[in-house]
């Protein structure tokens, strides 16, 4: 449950988007600082700005230029990218937001494909004359047609002459 009702007006959507974007940027900088074990003062020296600029960037009132954020993340040796739904797709965006674990989803799909492949080896496809599409063919021609379906060297397909089997 959310503390806020879903954004209905354009103004509400803009407020939410601005806050989410700003918060994500700030947490990215904080995470990079923690990874590099670097303090705000040291980062300011690295980027070439005053410590109060860094402090302001991480505060609630922050409204930094995109260029400043990029420079700071680059100074922290952080690889980063901007993503949006139109360009990168919803799943990538959900993954970045943490709503969907994309890697886990891919792994799950790969496991499913692996399972299907292993099942495929166990399957036997049996064809009979009656399974063939209705064509005006003689019995011999129909059998020949059915055999064409048997791929060369593929044991999964087997032609069964049900009439002969029943007669036997």
């Amino acid at each position, binding site marked *: *449950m*959310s*503390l*806020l*009702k879903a954004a209905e007006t354009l103004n*509400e959507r803009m*407020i*939410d988007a601005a*806050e*989410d974007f700003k*918060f994500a940027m700030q*947490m990215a900088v*904080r*995470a990079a600082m*923690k990874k590099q074990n670097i303090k705000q003062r040291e980062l300011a020296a690295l980027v070439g700005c005053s410590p109060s600029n860094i402090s302001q960037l*991480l*505060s*609630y009132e922050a409204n930094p230029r995109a260029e400043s954020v990029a420079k700071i993340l680059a100074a922290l040796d952080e690889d980063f990218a901007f993503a949006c739904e139109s360009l990168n797709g919803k799943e990538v965006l959900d993954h970045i937001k*943490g709503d969907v674990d994309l890697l886990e989803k891919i792994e799950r799909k790969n496991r499913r494909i692996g399972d299907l492949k292993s099942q495929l080896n166990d399957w036997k496809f049996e064809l009979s004359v009656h399974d063939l599409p209705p064509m005006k063919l003689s019995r011999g021609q129909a059998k020949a047609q059915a055999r064409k379906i048997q791929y060369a060297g593929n044991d999964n397909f087997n032609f069964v002459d049900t009439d002969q089997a029943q007669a036997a």
Partner: protein
Amino acid sequence: MSTLVEIVKGKYATVLATKKVEKDLKKIGRGDRRSIKRLQNHMEHYAKHGPDLLDGDDQFKYEDRVNMGLGDGQTVKVYVFKGPNHLRVYGCLDNDGRVSLCGSTRVKQKNKAIQGDLEKAAKEFGKYVSGELS
């Protein structure tokens, strides 16, 4: 009857609140959406990633150890989720921090915590521990 509301659930923790806290925050949100959105982002981050990256001055902080009011002298650590404009939501964590129960809220004029708010949050947590709240 359920008297707690789940605000956000993540890999790391679940943030719960009493209905009173939820009502108060929703009321503030109707007039100041930006502050509540920011506060909610702090809670969501805590629920997804834990408290490591949250800043003590602006976002999430340990306040004090306060009596739970169960009559046996048990105390609990009270934490605060901070929002802009001195918006504060006080809550307690269960033993490993996987559940955060928000028990009181306040929009203050000064940065210093009001002891009554901490005690209220601790007492609500006491009720949760004793099973009065679910």
